[in-house]
């Protein structure tokens, strides 16, 4: 059956948003229910993707390809492979969680839910696009609702944070737009066909000099989104000011778009430049791992702590991508999902106590275990998952990444490992200060444990945390073929470029030799 399943999943939330436009804004319950039903429906229909996904092919699956703007060769070309499958599912899952987590938003709930649903469409679209133009459209489209979510429902410094978020991301992505157009015309010159189709452009052999600049343009777009070390300054601001659901989406999905972009676009399009840039990216990633961890350690605000821990975790992901081996890459992709789950859950947990106490300062808490035992259990599991305790999801991803890194560069691996240790320090120290110690603050004595809705938020995440930690095979087996294919693709193109270089070198050497010999003959004459 040729049901356009990806399109349905992607645009169902948009349809829901349009539906909500016509619902009376006074009727808050109804609005929340509609949004929830749409999100649940969307998640449920995205599940068959997991089960029907063919394990033995590296081809894109569930493909749809319709011409969109024929004059420019732009098509609506979507499909998923083992790399995007889980990010896609993660997005529909986390949006569902976020809508449920926003149940207590009182202010302008209608606009809130509309923004949330449009955001979901934008994010899902990014992960399925196989057309550079389409990808860019979704990539930018999703900025608008996120900007509004932070700016309207955020904390006191929300306007500063949201404008910073918008301008940073936009600044990176417009350079990518220029690069996309350049590739488009290069492809035209090589093949005579105007097309933005990624799968066709994959075959393009971009000259080395151009690769350098194009890679750099894409790098800025993605590195700001990830965010990599010196480009991360927007993240703590955005996280701290965003409403809980905004933070969850931001950490869970938005940041993954950057790393996903590297995997999907930068590596296969510019293999030579990617290899050339390894030292820079690796050192930035390591700097991010250590810097993020150290800064997280001294934070007094829980949300800021989690935000900086993201910088650190994403450093691992970047490092894993740029070692060009299967363990590193699979570890990275898995780590993207893990980070989405555990950091998302951490933001939810922080949101829960913030709702109760209206403060996020670590110093205001202490001894919460006594009042909120269930909360403490979940918090502990998630904290340990974030640290990477064996048996939980974080371990699998981090371990794979470190194995991959170790295979190529021991120094990188050793330095990155310090991040694991540091993360244990700041997370456990934070946990101790918040949950243990004496319950001194009288405000905290009134705290209630988590309710049914909050159970419903945390339980599914916790189950996934254990599942990935104990039996990650169903997930890794779905990535295997695609990741392998990607790596061989990159490797082959890289080798071709290297060969060219070699030939050029030889020719140059030969030319010099000839020069010498002619000079010689002249001397003889």
């Amino acid at each position: 059956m040729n049901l356009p399943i990806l399109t349905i999943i992607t645009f169902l939330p948009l349809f829901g948003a349009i539906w909500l436009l016509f619902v009376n804004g006074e009727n808050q319950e109804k609005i929340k229910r509609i949004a929830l039903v749409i999100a649940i429906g969307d998640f449920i229909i995205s599940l068959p993707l997991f089960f029907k996904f063919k394990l033995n092919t590296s081809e894109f699956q569930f493909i749809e390809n319709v011409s969109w703007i024929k004059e420019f060769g732009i098509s609506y070309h979507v499909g998923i492979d083992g790399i995007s499958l889980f990010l896609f599912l993660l997005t529909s899952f986390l949006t569902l969680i976020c809508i449920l987590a926003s149940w207590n938003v009182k202010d302008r709930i209608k606009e809130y839910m509309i923004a949330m649903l449009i955001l979901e469409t934008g994010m899902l679209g990014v992960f399925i696009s196989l057309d550079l133009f389409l990808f860019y459209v979704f990539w930018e489209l999703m900025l608008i609702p996120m900007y509004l979510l932070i700016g309207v429902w955020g904390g006191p410094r929300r306007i500063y944070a949201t404008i910073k978020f918008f301008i940073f991301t936009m600044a990176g992505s417009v350079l990518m737009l220029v690069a996309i157009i350049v590739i488009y015309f290069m492809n035209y010159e090589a093949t005579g066909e105007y097309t933005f189709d990624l799968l066709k452009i994959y075959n393009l052999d971009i000259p080395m000099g151009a690769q350098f600049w194009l890679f750099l343009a894409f790098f800025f777009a993605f590195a700001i989104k990830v965010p990599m070390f010196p480009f991360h300054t927007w993240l703590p601001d955005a996280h701290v000011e965003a409403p809980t659901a905004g933070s969850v989406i931001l950490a869970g999905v938005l940041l993954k778009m950057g790393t996903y972009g590297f995997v999907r676009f930068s590596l296969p399009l510019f293999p030579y430049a990617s290899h050339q840039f390894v030292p820079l990216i690796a050192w930035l990633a390591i700097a991010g791992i250590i810097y993020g961890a150290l800064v997280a350690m001294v934070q007094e605000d829980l949300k800021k702590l989690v935000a900086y821990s993201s910088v650190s975790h994403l450093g691992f992901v970047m490092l894993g991508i740029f070692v060009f081996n299967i363990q590193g890459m699979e570890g990275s992709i898995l780590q993207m999902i893990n980070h989405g789950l555990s950091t998302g859950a951490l933001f939810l947990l922080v949101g829960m106590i913030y709702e109760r106490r209206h403060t996020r300062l670590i110093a205001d808490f202490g001894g919460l275990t006594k009042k909120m035992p269930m909360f403490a259990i979940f918090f502990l599991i998630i904290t340990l998952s974030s640290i990477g305790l064996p048996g939980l999801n974080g371990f699998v991803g981090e371990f794979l990444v470190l194995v991959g890194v170790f295979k190529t560069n021991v120094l990188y691996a050793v330095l990155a490992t310090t991040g694991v240790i540091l993360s244990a320090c700041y997370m456990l120290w934070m946990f101790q200060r918040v949950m243990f110690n004496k319950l001194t603050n009288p405000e905290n004595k009134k705290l209630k444990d988590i309710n049914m809705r909050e159970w419903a938020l945390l339980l599914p995440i916790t189950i996934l945390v254990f599942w990935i930690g104990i039996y990650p095979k169903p997930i890794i087996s779905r990535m295997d073929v695609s990741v392998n294919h990607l790596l061989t693709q990159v490797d082959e193109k890289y080798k071709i470029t290297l060969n060219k270089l070699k030939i050029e070198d030889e020719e140059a050497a030969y030319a010099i030799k000839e020069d010498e010999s002619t000079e010689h003959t002249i001397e003889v004459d």
Partner: protein
Amino acid sequence: MEIVIPPFDLKSISPILIITISAMLILVADVFFRKTFRDSLGYISFLIVVLTAMVACTQMGKTVYSFSDMFVVDNFSVFFNLIFLVSTAIVILLSVSYIKQEGINYGEYYTLILFATMGMMLMAGGADLLTIFLGLEIMSISLYVLAGFRRDCVRSNEASLKYFLLGAFATCFLLYGIAMLYGTTGTTNIKEIASFLANNPSLSNPMIVTGTSLLIIGFGFKVACVPFHKWTPDVYEGAPTAITAFMSVGPKAAAFAAFTRVFLVALPDVEQKWSIILWVLAVLTMTVGNLVAIVQKNIKRMLAYSSIAHAGYALMAIIAGGDFGSSSLLFYMLAYTFMNLGAFAVVIVLGRKGKENANIEDYSGLGFKHPLLAVTMCIFMFSLAGIPPFVGFIGKFYIFSAAIKNGFIILAIIGVVNSVISVYYYLRVTVVMYMKKPVREFAPLSLSPFVILALIITLWGTIHLGIFPARLIDLAQKSTLLY
């Protein structure tokens, strides 16, 4: 001596004729049937413009030179005519209740708008420098009067006088430039100039060099590119808002039409070798426009500077040249017409007599007081900033593609960086609408069915053409037959 009357083809100028005759009839009707007709003049003018647009559409697809090669009908001019007519129609819709509210409901208002439109159409179809000059004068003189139409308002008078003095001055430059070209080539006909220059080395001739520079100054003034932009903010702020809206799209597009035709057809050689001058102008225009827009407090001034910046993007299209460049210019001008007129429509809706409420701060809290209007404004702002899926994005994408295709990558990068700068001030409007508390009560909106229709048309253009631009792109590509 027998005087030979050259053959002329009235059919080729039928849209212009319709507009001219009906404009005169409206003037007469206003004098004689003031009481019965006054209120319906707006609808009548609107219908005339729609009719003219339909007639103009039938001219698509042919190339006819008439009036001794003084005037041409080709797809390029027809496309521009449609841009003018769309903008005129929307402006008339915006004006109907606006001029009543401002107490400036005089019949000549519509006549002048129609005359200005006629001038623009003459400019787009001018195959001779003199025709272009004629059209430019008709358009400008109408606009000088329209800018000062709020007679009892000092700012409006100032706008009119400033526009007139500076405009007349700029026109002199243009005319002098034409004279220089005539002096060298012995003709004012665009095609003949082109063939003369093709056979004679042109750049070494100081007359050509001076003439071309003077033309650039003349057109540069009309499209408001830096450093000839100084009149724009004051005139835009002082003029009646509906006229500001008009000036920001129609005349600008007309000047670009003439600019393109003169530079790409008559002076292609100069255009290529001189692209560095236009390059600098484009970069200055974009950058100054955007940077100065950031600090504006009045939304009309902000939109004035934003329109300067947009002229910079459009200049990029001319620099890129070729089919790609000129079709991207066509697309962009139409896209800009929809989104910019839409933004002005919202400004008009929020205005009161004597109190324009045109400070950006006045929009605080609009998002939750009048959600639909605010969403509309948001869409126009995002579109102007060039964010998908709105038409402004496709337009910019088209222009940047044209620039990159023809090797102007640095220019394209400066262009995209500029769009990021522009995001800041467009976002600020959305920030005050959604993220600030209202500073005071909102008066009831001045929504008439006409304004609503105008909003619907501009919204449709901004959204629909943003998501499904294929047909329009196709049309624009077919309309570049300049060569």
